[in-house]
Every structure is written in structure tokens, then in C-alpha cells.
């Protein structure tokens, strides 16, 4: 293996401040909640103190959003709304490097991912949706689609800025105002986004950002002033939200967990497939709801593929997320590390064969070495439950029908992958797989023009594309 000299990105670029405050009605203000300390998971050092919201703050933010909706944003011509949103897109791009470094510090993901995926895709999401603001009557949802009002949005820690963009951009384009709660462990880039929104001169109250833990999210989604709830996170919490909102008449969209099958046929170009498998499960440390966490490989090539896969995974560089050569960064929190560890223990206890990349891990920080389980059966927890970490479960199949049956044998249905050189088989598989996104001979591709979202217990509603607009319109 080649040795590389360290190539760290400078953390000064993040313009890290000792404290951050919540953003309500166009201003940064102190929150009534207990401030939280956000930690760099790569080093366990405290990065900053962040003010959090309490119940009154949630109420205040929702009222501000309501005022902004009724007086300004909801009645503004779409063409004007569009220009504000374009501004946000541009300003994210202008501050891309700062945002990327800050994201990596707060989240633990490799700088090459925050730099090349999270931040540019976030900017692209605003840019794409800006253009919709004055073209909604062409979206195929009726001649005069109307906004819903105030959107309460709760997002996870795995793609903090990108998820904020996925939520805020379509809401604003459709004429809604927003109260968004970033994840407890990753609030920083959303608050810089708030600064951008302020500098872009959005009218006060159009976007409000309230850091805090799950209790703030629960207050937000249940607030009677909220007309629309959008949540991305675990299926467990998604079910709680759906249940708690039963009979309340709010429009709800949920983007929840997954246990995606990545299906490799014997005619697949194995070297390419290996790259796709690695990307599918080790991208963002496997903290991806659509991660290809179940590898289904045709029996005749299973040994060959596994040898190639282990060799490739052995070359992954695990460590300092700020190093530009790092492939796998830090696990986002100790809680998540514990959860991954316990699921991996269950895999061993249930008799799967564990292989761990022989990489060295830093002394400090939350890290987990890339792990591949083979000999996995469908009944094992590691084949059924979302691990949300760099852990791959390998199962085998003989026939395409068996591959489909195993791939679909899950209550989830967010994504799936197919690897084969045969075009007709790709389309047949794409048709049979019960998942919202099917990547064929690729994996983990995202684009604002391409709708993303789940079947079954992976949630409902789409984000991106024409289909994604429905989530924020009264149609």
C-alpha cells in the first residue's frame, strides 16, 4: 500500500466561533434551552457551545414563520422568491470551503466528501428549486398549486447542511416558510446557513433555525401553528411522529431508514462492482439511510468477489477527516459508535464470519474499522436492522428470482443496487425491486432533479424533482 504524506485541510478555514445562537425572525438570539456543546467526533474536543430552543422559542419561531408567510412570503410573486433562493445557492458556493471544513469538524466525515458532495449538492439544491418558484403551475400538480403555510422540519446528523438544503429549498420555492431543527450533534453548518439566509436578505421569519435535541423536534412537529411536517431520520422516530400527528390534518413527509440490497450478478464487471460496493457502504462511514448494507452476490462469483472486496477495503484510509486522503472518517458520536459495536457483536454471536480491515485507528475520537460479515443469513440482526455504520453484510443467491426475493425481504424500501452487464436484466431488476431508488452499475448518486424517497417503512414523500414539489404544495 502506498504511503501518503498527511494532507490536512486547515481548520482555520471553518471560522469556528466559541458560541453559536439560534436564528429566529431574522435575528440570532439566545434560546431558552440548556446550551449544548458540540463535539468534534474525530478528536472528542468541544468545538463550540450552541444555544438551544425551549418550548417558548419553538412557539416564537412558528409565529414568526406564520407572520412571514401571511404578510410577505406566501403572497410574494414566485419570480421574486426565486431570486432570493438563487442568492442562497450562490452564497453557499462562495463559502463552500468554509462550510466543508466546518461540516467535517462537526460531523466527522472526510473532507473530500463534504467538499465534493455535501456542500456542492446543497448549493445545487437551492439553485434547482429557485427556478421552480415561478413555474409551479407547470409541475403537473394542477393549474394553481398553493403553498401549505409553515413547515416544521427535523433533520439528521449524517448530512447536516445537505439535509437542511433538501428541506428548506423546496419549501421556500413552493411559498412556505420554515422552522428547521438541525440534529443535536451537528448544528453548526445550519447556523452558518442561517447567516447566509440573513445576508441574502430573506424577509425575517421566512427561515428559522432552532438547535436542540429530540424534545425540541417533538415540540416543533406538534406545534399547532405548523401546517406541514417533514422529517428525515430513523424509522422508529418517524413512526412516533406519524402516530403523534394522527388526526391533526398536517401534511407529513418522512424519509426514514433503510437496509438496501446491493445485488451483484456473476456477469458484473467485478472490479467496478467492488468500487460500487465500497462506495455503497463506506461512503460517509456508512451513515447513510440508503447505504448498500446488504450485499447479495451470486454464489458462483462470491469467493472471487469477496477476495477482491477485502483487498480493496484494506486500502481504505481511516482517520483524520480533515486529511484530504482520508476515505473513512469518524463515527459521528459515541452513542452511534456503541450502537454499531453492539450490532457487530450480535453478528458474531449469531454466527456470521467477521472480517475487519487491518487499518490502524487514531487513539482519540470515535472510529470504527471497515467490517465485512460473510455467511450472513436473512434472519440475523445484521441482515435485518439498519446499522448505520461501516459494516457490510454479505449474503448469496443463485437465481435472479432468489435475488429479488431476498432483496425485497425487508420492511424498508429506500434504495437498491444492481450490478450486471446485461441491460435487460438491469431493467427487469429495476422493475422488481421495491425501493424508491435503484442504482444500476453505480451507487449513492444524488441530484436535485432526481426524486429520492422510500417505499414501505422507509417513509413516504419524495425530495427532488417534480415529484418532490408535491410535499410542499396543497394539491
Amino acid at each position, binding site marked *: 500500500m502506498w504511503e501518503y504524506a498527511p494532507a490536512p485541510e486547515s481548520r482555520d478555514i471553518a471560522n469556528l466561533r466559541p458560541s453559536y445562537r439560534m436564528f429566529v425572525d431574522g435575528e440570532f438570539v439566545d434560546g431558552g434551552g440548556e446550551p449544548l456543546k458540540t463535539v468534534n467526533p474525530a478528536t472528542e474536543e468541544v468545538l463550540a457551545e450552541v444555544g438551544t430552543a425551549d418550548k417558548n422559542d419553538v412557539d416564537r419561531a412558528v409565529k414568526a414563520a406564520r407572520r412571514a408567510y401571511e404578510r410577505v412570503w406566501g403572497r410574494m410573486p414566485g419570480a421574486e422568491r426565486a431570486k432570493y433562493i438563487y442568492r442562497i445557492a450562490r452564497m453557499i458556493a462562495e463559502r463552500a470551503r468554509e462550510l466543508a471544513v466546518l461540516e467535517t469538524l462537526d460531523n466527522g466525515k472526510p473532507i473530500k466528501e463534504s467538499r465534493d458532495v455535501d456542500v456542492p449538492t446543497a448549493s*445545487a439544491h437551492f439553485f434547482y428549486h429557485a427556478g421552480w418558484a415561478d413555474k409551479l403551475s407547470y409541475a*403537473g400538480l*394542477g393549474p394553481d398549486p398553493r403553498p401549505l403555510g409553515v413547515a416544521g422540519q427535523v433533520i439528521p446528523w449524517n448530512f447536516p447542511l445537505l439535509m437542511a438544503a433538501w428541506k428548506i429549498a423546496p419549501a421556500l420555492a413552493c411559498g412556505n416558510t420554515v422552522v428547521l431543527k438541525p440534529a443535536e450533534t451537528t448544528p453548526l453548518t445550519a447556523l452558518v446557513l442561517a447567516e447566509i439566509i440573513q445576508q441574502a436578505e430573506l424577509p425575517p421569519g421566512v427561515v428559522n433555525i432552532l438547535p436542540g435535541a429530540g424534545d425540541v423536534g417533538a415540540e416543533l412537529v406538534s406545534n399547532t401553528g405548523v401546517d406541514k411536517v417533514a422529517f428525515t431520520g430513523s*424509522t422508529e422516530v*418517524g*413512526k*412516533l411522529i*406519524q*402516530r403523534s400527528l*394522527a*388526526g*391533526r*390534518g398536517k401534511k407529513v413527509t*418522512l424519509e*426514514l431508514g433503510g437496509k438496501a440490497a446491493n445485488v451483484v450478478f456473476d456477469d458484473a464487471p467485478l472490479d467496478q462492482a467492488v468500487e460500487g460496493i465500497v462506495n455503497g457502504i463506506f461512503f460517509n462511514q456508512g451513515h447513510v439511510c440508503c447505504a448498500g448494507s446488504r450485499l447479495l452476490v451470486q454464489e458462483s462469483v462470491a469467493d472471487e468477489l469477496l477476495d477482491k472486496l477485502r483487498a480493496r477495503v484494506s486500502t481504505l484510509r481511516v482517520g483524520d477527516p480533515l486529511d484530504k486522503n482520508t476515505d473513512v472518517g469518524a463515527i459521528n458520536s459515541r452513542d452511534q459508535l456503541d450502537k454499531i459495536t453492539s450490532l457487530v457483536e450480535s453478528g458474531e454471536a449469531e454466527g456470521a464470519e467477521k472480517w475487519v480491515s487491518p487499518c490502524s485507528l487514531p487513539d482519540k475520537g470515535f472510529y470504527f474499522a471497515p467490517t465485512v460479515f460473510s455467511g450472513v443469513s436473512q434472519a440475523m440482526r445484521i441482515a435485518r436492522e439498519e446499522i448505520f455504520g461501516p459494516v457490510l453484510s454479505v449474503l448469496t443467491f443463485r437465481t435472479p428470482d432468489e435475488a429479488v426475493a431476498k432483496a425485497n425481504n425487508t*420492511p424498508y424500501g429506500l434504495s437498491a443496487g444492481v450490478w450486471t452487464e446485461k441491460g435487460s436484466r*438491469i431493467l427487469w431488476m*429495476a422493475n422488481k425491486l421495491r*425501493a*424508491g*431508488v*435503484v*442504482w*444500476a*452499475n*453505480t451507487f449513492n*448518486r444524488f*441530484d436535485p*432533479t*432526481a*426524486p*429520492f*424517497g422510500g*417505499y*414501505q*417503512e*422507509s*417513509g*413516504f414523500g*419524495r425530495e427532488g*424533482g*417534480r*415529484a418532490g414539489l*408535491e410535499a410542499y404544495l396543497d*394539491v
Partner: protein
Amino acid sequence: MSDRLSVAKTYKLYIGGAFPRSESGRSYPVRDGKGTFLANAAQGSRKDVREAVVAARKAFGGWSGATAYNRGQVLYRVAELLEGRREQFVAEVAASEGVAARKAQSTVDAAIDRWVWYAGWADKVASVLGASNPVAGPYFSFSVPEPTGVVGVLAPQSSSLLGLVSVVAPVIATGNTAVVVAAQDRPLPAITLSEVLATSDVPGGVVNVITGRTAELAPWLASHADVNALDLTGAPESMRAELEGAAADTVKRVLRARATEPDWTTQPDVSRLRAFLETKTVWHPMGV
């Protein structure tokens, strides 16, 4: 008036293409608007609901896998058969809903036309709701609508035929299969519609119809793990929140009921089609 005694029909459930009585052995009297006895309907049970879900699941692969053209033709054929039974439906609607013959006639006409309208959507909905996605990279990406799966439908309580057709046709036009709880006090047109479906080319199990007490049957449908979506249109108002809550346990898609039953004579849009569709996005690299 003839002296001949007519042969009365036994109204049964419709499950998996067959007409069983309720496994519970129960029935309940159905009366017209004036309280006159019309017939006994089967009073379906939890087990009947579960049998119906099994039948609907079994039928889903074939129905959703049929070509859209084929589904459109099969559904159009249903309209042809409805037309042939027009007089029977007029009589049943008049009796069930307590309306004059003329009103019943226009209702049945509208129901047949509604069925034709939805039949025509079968092979158009993908072009209208699907998309080619212009992604920023060397990939071909497209999105297609796909049926959600097994849909539990609580049929409207007032409009026994037009309302029923307006909620069932959009569910199956796109390839879903349905378990329908018929209007509790006006179930007879639903069973006659089942007879039409049974003698048409709609495969058994695509539509299953349970008659009985909505309040007894709905919770089993709402909580059933193999039901993917729920249409609350005919749910008793006092139960709607509870049913929606039960549906959350398996993240079902829920089409909520409006405060009052809609005016089914107004021309629908695609929202009922959209309610029971998923969007699937497929990506493939482009290159040589």
C-alpha cells in the same frame, strides 16, 4: 305486477375472486331509506379482513406486473359490464340511497363514466407523473410511478355506487390491489359490483369487498402489517385519528377523509391516483 315470486339474491363477501359467507357466520339486515328490509348482508369479521389481505397480496404481483395497456382494457371491460347491468344498479342505488329513479339513473351513468375515465388513466399516468431527470453527470436517470401495494379502502358511507367507484377505480387503475370495506348501511351495490368484477377479466384478489360494521373492520385493516396504504374516506369521524395512528405502526400511506363526504358528481383530478403511487428513480451510468 306479476304474481311470480322473485328469486332473492344472497349477498356475500367477495374475497380472492370467490363469494364466501363471513367465516363468522354473521349477517345483518340491510334496509332502504324508509326502513323496509332489502336483504341480509354478510357481517364480515377480522378473519375475513385478513383473508382478503392475503388474497390482495397474492394478486398484486400479477396485476401490477400486467402491462398498463392490458390493465386499461380489463378495466374498460368492467365498464361494459356495468352498462349491461345498468337497470339492476339503478334499482339498487334507488333503494339503498332512497333517491328517485331519475337521480339513481344519473348516478349510475356517472359511475360508469367515472370507471371509463379511470380505465383510461392506466396507460397514461406514468407519462404524466414520471420523468426523465436531467442530472448533472454522465448518468441516465428516470423516475416512474409504481403502485404502492395493497390498499385498504373504507368506502364512502353515503354514495353507495358512484362514491365506491370513485375510490376503488383509481386504486386499481395504477396496479394496486384493494381490500374494500363497503358502505355499512348501503352495501348492496358494492356486492353487485363485485359480481361484475368476478365476471369481468379482473383477476381474483385485485378487488376484495367486505361488508359489515365499518367500526369493527377498519382497525384490523389499519393495523395490518401487509397493508401498504389506507383510504379513510368512509371512516367514522370519531375513529379517524385512531385509525391514522394505527396506520403509523407500519408507515402506511394514509389518504385522509374530508370533513364531509365529497360531492362525487364533480369531475375528479389525478390526486386519488397519486395518493397510492410511489416514485421509483433509476440511475445508470452513460459511457462507451
